Each structure stands twice: as C-alpha cells, then as structure tokens.
C-alpha cells in the first residue's frame, strides 16, 4: 500500500512536469492554431539563462522574474522575425521552421554551456512534508505552481478582452480582423506568453531532472501525450491530461507491463484517445465554418 501511494505521488510529480509543458503547447495552439515543436527547447534555453544569472550571483527570484521577462520578449521576437514572413505559408513550412528552431536552440545551448548536466537550484526546500519520504516540498511546489498558472490562464482567456481577442485571432483570422483585432500582434503575444510559461516550466523541472540541453526532449513527448489526452485546445484538459499520463504511466509501469513499455503505453493512450474522442477527454469539438 505504501508503495502504491508512493508511486502515485511520484506520478503526480512527473505529471505536474508534463502538465507544465502541455500548458505551453496549449498556449501556442490556442493563440496561433499551431503545435510548436520547439516549445521544449525554448524552455530549456530560458532555463539556461536563469542558471547563468544565478551563477553570476543574482538572487533566485530576481533571476526568475528576469528570465520570464526575457523569455516573453524572446517569444515575441521569434514570432515577429522568424514566423511573421511565414504567416501565409503552408503548414508544412511552419513545421520545418519549428524543427529548425528546435535544433538551433539545442545546439546553441550546447555550444555556450556544454552538454554536461548542471544542478539548478530549487526555490522550495528539499524537505519532506510528512517526514516519511512520500511527498517533498519540491514536488508539492511544482504541482502548486502548475495549478496557479492554469488558474491565471483560464481567467485570462475566459474573462479578459485581450484573451478573447487572442482566441478569435487564432480561430478565425479574417473575422477577427474585421472586428478590429490586430491579428498579427495577437499571434506574437501568444508566442510571448507561451515562451514565458515554458520558462517557468523549465525552471520548475530543472531541479528534478537536472539541466542539460536535452532536458526537454523526453518530457516534450509526454507533454504532447498529456495535451492530446486532455484536449489540445483546453488548458484545464491539458493539465488534467498531464497528471493522468504521469500517474497512469507509473502505475502501469510498476504493476502491469514493466518499465520498458512506459513510453509505448503513453503513445497507445494518445492513439486511443484520438481514435475514440479526437478532441481529447476534456476537449470540445470545434466545428469550423468553411
């Protein structure tokens, strides 16, 4: 029983990580209608920036704030400079562009900071909550921050004019433009926000998995799984999906199929969900008028 609870706790922690990454993916999807394959590497790069600042002597929270700001500006910049010219290009061109960004960020980080793993400080103490090794403050912190981000995003998209404008720009650019929404800037804003969320996710993940240029590669796959399971157009669904994938993966790995097939299991879940409920468990079916 103890073991069961422990595996659930460990699953929730990895689930929170997947959820964080999934949130960034959803953010870009909701605001630009694309899936950004470079999301993980952008987050990793931002985390390195934070590491460099902390290494240079800045206090953690100042480095944290600065990194989020820089990441936001960086996301905006990438959209303006790299993606703006491709606004009317076919989807495939964008996919190629995302993959290019992925390898550029990965190689840049390796070039600047080398490929050996680095320790990243955690804002949460490495203490146990109950004193039995079950849940550490660090794990609880990751879950809490993820939920807070989810809350803020939901409020932003549902109750603010800007959030509404961004959703409109993504789903029907022409109509949005006719309504006076500056579509192009809405897309850029979406990128900025996604990059900022990614930076936060990176800084939460790094103390657990260690910082290296390939930190996000494995996580991104699970992040995708989480986002697709919950519904890629729905922040709440993505977070729930992340947790579901994290816990299921651990339980199934420990009790049913063994550790070898964990990733396969995650992918089977994705295929299953897409077959039975293409919009995800929590997703709403969106009908587009053509």
């Amino acid at each position: 029983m103890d073991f069961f609870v422990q595996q659930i706790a460990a699953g929730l922690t990895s689930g929170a990580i997947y959820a964080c990454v999934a949130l960034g993916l959803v953010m870009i999807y909701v605001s630009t209608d694309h899936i950004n394959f470079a999301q993980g590497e952008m987050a990793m790069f931002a985390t390195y920036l934070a590491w460099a600042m902390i290494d240079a002597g800045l206090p953690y929270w100042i480095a944290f704030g600065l990194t989020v700001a820089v990441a936001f500006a960086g996301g905006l910049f990438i959209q303006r400079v790299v993606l703006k010219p491709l606004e009317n290009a076919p989807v495939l061109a964008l996919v190629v562009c995302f993959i290019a960004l992925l390898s550029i960020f990965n190689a840049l980080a390796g070039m600047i900071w080398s490929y050996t793993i680095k320790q990243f400080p955690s804002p949460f103490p490495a203490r146990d909550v109950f004193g039995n090794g079950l849940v550490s403050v660090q794990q609880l912190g990751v879950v809490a921050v993820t939920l807070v981000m989810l809350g803020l995003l939901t409020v932003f998209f549902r109750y603010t004019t800007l959030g509404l404008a961004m959703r409109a720009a993504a789903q029907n650019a022409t109509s949005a433009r006719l309504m006076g929404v500056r579509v192009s800037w809405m897309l850029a804003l979406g990128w900025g926000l996604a990059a900022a969320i990614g930076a936060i996710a990176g800084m939460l993940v790094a103390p657990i998995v260690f910082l290296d240029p390939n930190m996000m590669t494995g996580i991104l796959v699970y992040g995708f799984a989480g986002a697709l399971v919950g519904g890629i157009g729905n922040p709440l669904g993505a977070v729930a999906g992340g947790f579901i994938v994290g816990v299921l993966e651990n339980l199934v790995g420990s009790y049913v199929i063994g550790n070898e097939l964990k990733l396969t299991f995650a992918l089977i879940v994705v295929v299953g969900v897409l077959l039975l409920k293409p919009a995800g468990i929590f997703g709403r079916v969106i009908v587009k008028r053509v």
Partner: protein
Amino acid sequence: MQINRRTALLGAAAIGVAGTRHARAAKNYGPGVTDTEIKIGQTMPYSGNASAYGVAGRTQAAFFRMINDQGGINGRKINFISLDDGYSPPKTVELTRQLVERDQVLLMFYSLGTQTNTAIHKYMNQKKVPQLFVATGASKWGNPKAYPWTMGWSPDYHTEGAIHARAILEAVPDAKIGILRQNDDMGNDYLDGIKEGLGADGWKRVVADATYEVTDPTVDSQILQLRNAGVNAFLNVSTPKFAAQAIKKAAEIGWKPKHHLMSVSASVGAVLRPAGFENAQGIVTAQYAKDVSDPAWANAPDYKEWKAFMDKWNPTINPFEGSSVTGYASAVTLVHVLTQCGDDLTRENVMKQAASMHQLAIPMLLPGIKLNTSPTDYYPIQSVQLARFETDHWVLFGELQSRDVA
C-alpha cells in the same frame, strides 16, 4: 613483407605516373598514406543526445595537432577527419562510407557509440578497413574470429559487471541486490556480466531488476521500486543524467543501500557534483583511468604531461570532463600502433600491430594497468580497480581486478 594485389596495382600506377616510386620499394602503403601524411577517420557525437562525449574527439584532434607540431609519426603528419554523426546510426553509416570510399582513410579510430558502431560493424569487416579502438564498452568488439578488423579499447561492460557483482558478494554477505539499468545493448551486456560474476547462487540474491528508457524524464519511479523490494546492495547501471537523478532521489527518500556505480557515470564534475557530494559519499565504482580531480595524482609525471597538453593545445575544454582523459590515452595508444607500423602502413599491418601489444603502459591509466592484445585477444584493457567516493574525490582501494577472456 606482404604485398597484396591492390597495393601492387597502386604501386604500378604510381610508377607509371611518377617513375620514381620503385626506388622506395621498402615502403608499403595502404589507402590514405603517403610519404608525408596518414589519413584517419572518425565519427563522433558533436551534436544530439550524447554530445557530452564529443569532448573525446576534440581532445584527440588537439593531441594529433601536437604530434604533428612535433614532427608527426615517423615523419608523417596525421590528417584527422572527425565528423559529427549526432549519435545516429544511419548518419554513422553515411559518414563512414564517405570517409572510407571518398576520403580513403587508412583506418577509423575511436568512433563513439554502441549502436553507431554496430551499424558499420559488417561494412568495415567486408571492406577490410580497421575499426580501431571503438569508443564503446560493449563486449562484442573483441571477436577476432568473426570480425578481425574491429577492436575495442576500454574494459568492456561485461567485465565491469562481473567485477562489481563479485565485489558486492564479498562486501555484503546478506546482500539483496537491486539493479537499475538502461534498457539497451549496454544494459543487457552489463547484466550478462553481473550474472556471470554472481554465479547461479548469487543470482538468487537479485530481488529487483528495474530498467529505464533514455526517453524517460526521471528514474524516480524505478528508485522507489528498488527500495520497496528491500534492496540493500544497489548496482547502478545508468548513464550520467540518470545516475545523478538516482543518487539524489535515493538520498531524498532516505534510502542508503551499498551503492555501486558504473564507470561511465563516475565523473566527479559531470555527475557527482550536480547530484550533491553529500549524497554520493561511499559510492563504489571501477576505474581504469586516473581521476583528474583526485589530488593524489597531482605530482605524477603523466598527469603533469597531460595537464600541460590540455593547457597548451586544448584550452577550451574543461579538463574535468572525463572524456578528455580517455580521449587522450586512446590517442596515445593509436600513435603507438602507427609508430610500430614503421613504413609498412597497410591496413593489414595496422591490425597486426594493434593485435601485438605486450605489457604496454599508457599514460593516464591507473598504475599497473598494461595493454595486452594478441591475434585471439582483442580486448586491450581488461583490468580495473575499485574506488570509493570520499568527500570530493575517488579513493582507490583493493587490488587491480581482471576478468580474462580467452
């Protein structure tokens, strides 16, 4: 001296063109060799997942620059072509073919990776091109009967696994052994060694064998499984990032088994420092090369020579990244083989010389470790010594240990 048809033809062509070649009949050259140059190829992960190991290739390039600056090998400069395969086997195949067929290298040296080398294993042996001192610890490279053109260098995983297993049985009489290993060729190879070292009775003491995939974000779940199985002797066969995670997680949950760590992940700078020295106390590993963070070596002549080389020729590399030592020592081994070849620089003679190392001492390996090879023994280094982590460095203990492969 043996002249095959190819060199004879080449020689004939050269005479036809230059007319003077026959005057130097004592020299016998394979592809990639001239009076002034020896061409050597390599594939190395300078990008991608395993790029941390790229340090080895950079160090070797720097080392050969130094050798060239000092006049080369028997008057010939080394032309070292090291290409980035990103640790991806199809890329390795493409680049190796390019190096062998277009660039006409004499041999391939220290190409890195088990899967990548496996992908070119047959090709190299069909083409009869030396695949020398491959940078992987798999045990399959020492098979001269089936693959006479392929040779390993470092102690193989099988040997290491067997030695760790024996050490655990000795140190922990009531051992309940747990294994964490990467689910690939390396992990399986190591497991075979562990089985051999434990014997049939010892194998019954293994209570948990947990695997992970390189794509897994963490090994937290596996560590919990091991502790839950009541493991008190932990054999950690994981690569650097996962090893650091395992060490940290074990400390976090207050699990303190006897901890044996495979040598791939025994780097102080790249694994134990990030994992936290306080969490790594008492971990045991097996070493064959000198750990440069150990102050005990500070006055050793080979350490000083290595340090001087790193400072002058390889200043951009952090000397505490482990692969710079193995890269250096393997390059010294290659220079030895090529020097032994003299003016008979054919592929056949390269393999012949590589397979006749006798009690060869190489700088930066542990004192007492000698390289031995023969036409039936393609495992150059087969001895390791156990070391325990204390405060901030490894402390060697016990005798040199070997596992003989006939």
